[in-house]
């Protein structure tokens, strides 16, 4: 099983969720999964842009009851 990090950024306004994601990414090993929970509607386009620019893979991106759940596989780190 690969390492899995969960980041709870619910209730945080932009750019809080991305800041928390960047910090988790710093600590994550290649191949790890980072799960981010956020309620800020701006998080969805932001996480997509972030993943595209940094070469990381979004495994899952869904919204349920106002909570956005993004699961990212760390593929951008050597």
């Amino acid at each position: 099983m690969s390492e899995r990090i969960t980041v709870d950024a619910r209730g945080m306004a932009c750019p809080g969720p991305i800041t928390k994601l960047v910090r988790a990414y710093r600590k994550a090993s290649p191949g790890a999964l980072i799960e981010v929970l956020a309620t800020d509607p701006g998080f969805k386009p932001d996480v997509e842009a972030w993943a595209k620019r940094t070469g990381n893979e979004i495994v899952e991106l869904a919204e349920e009851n106002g909570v956005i759940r993004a699961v990212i596989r760390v593929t951008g780190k050597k």
Partner: protein
Amino acid sequence: MERILVLGAGTGGLVAANLLASHGYPVTLIEKRETHLFQPGMLWIAFQGHNPSRYTRPVKELVRPGVELVHGEVAGIDLGDRLVRLADGRTFTYTTLIIALGAHLDYDATPGHRELVERYGDFYSGASAAEKMWSHLRELTSGRLVIAAADPLYKCPPAPHKAAFLAAYTLKRMGRLGSVEVHLALPFLHEYPSEVVARIVAPKLEDDGVRVSTLFTVESIDVREGKIYSLEGEELDFSLAAVIPAHRGPMIRVEPGEVLDEDGFIKVDKYRLNVEGYDDAYAIGDSSNAPTSKTGVTAHLGAEVVVDRIMGYDSRFNGRTNCPIVADGTASFVISSYGHPPVPVKFTRFKRMLEDLFIASYWSSLKYPERWAPIFRAYFNATDPRVISGGW
């Protein structure tokens, strides 16, 4: 016997202590430094060569009669026993505590960072580091000046932008902008964390000759090779560089430890500013985890709220920011509050005059906050983000 203890003589601590003294409360203020530094002044020292004496004052000249000033370093706080311990072993008890100890700059989080600051100085580590930066900038005739950050969370969100604007202006006056590239490397998706602000700042940066990289979070620095590497996998060569260090909460021991968040900031009720679970202890300014920008303005406004609450009023902090973005002859402000994202504020000469007035009023507003309160209140009400939501 009543004793209000204020920890830290930065902006928030001085405003709180002086206001309380003006209302006749017995206040003790504990501070480890002899000198107070107006922190935005470091930008003017580092990138425009201002004399540091403009931005520093002895702490003892900034406290009013009625404030007992204690020179010492806080080592620990026991919230349950209402006890504060200093590094030299002295202890103080309190009836009400105000924690205003600021943020800790963590140079060790980034390999090569200490060496970079020792070699070139910066605009975060103190007046002498800023002077050192200036001594290198004035000698820079070619190559690249990089302004960057080690983490997206740092005090004064527009500080790197101001650094780039002021440096570009200085180099232009010296006739070297062009042979020297000013490169702003930001850890955000856009030119500013808020896209609304980014849309205003980006064209201004371009006009003023500043190159920008986004999503560049400094991971390590190789001073000898002159290279900065980012977490996102990119690198930048530099001839001169200033990197904003990662921030964390004050380096003190706090009991119970649950009141600290994962980065060591003190958890507070974001409106009342009391430490989570304690009615007799508050945290203001950079040391708290209140979800707003870490700036002198939020520390000042937070101090006013806490003093009101100590006096029995039900004042609430609204998270208001007013972060100036200073450019050549003009300025804009990042204006937001809890529940209201930043509004579009254009760069104008009038706003630059306002910012210069705020800077000029600084020492007086620390010592006599009640004299400035009606003036600031009028400004903050007139520029409430709900009032100017369409832009200013």
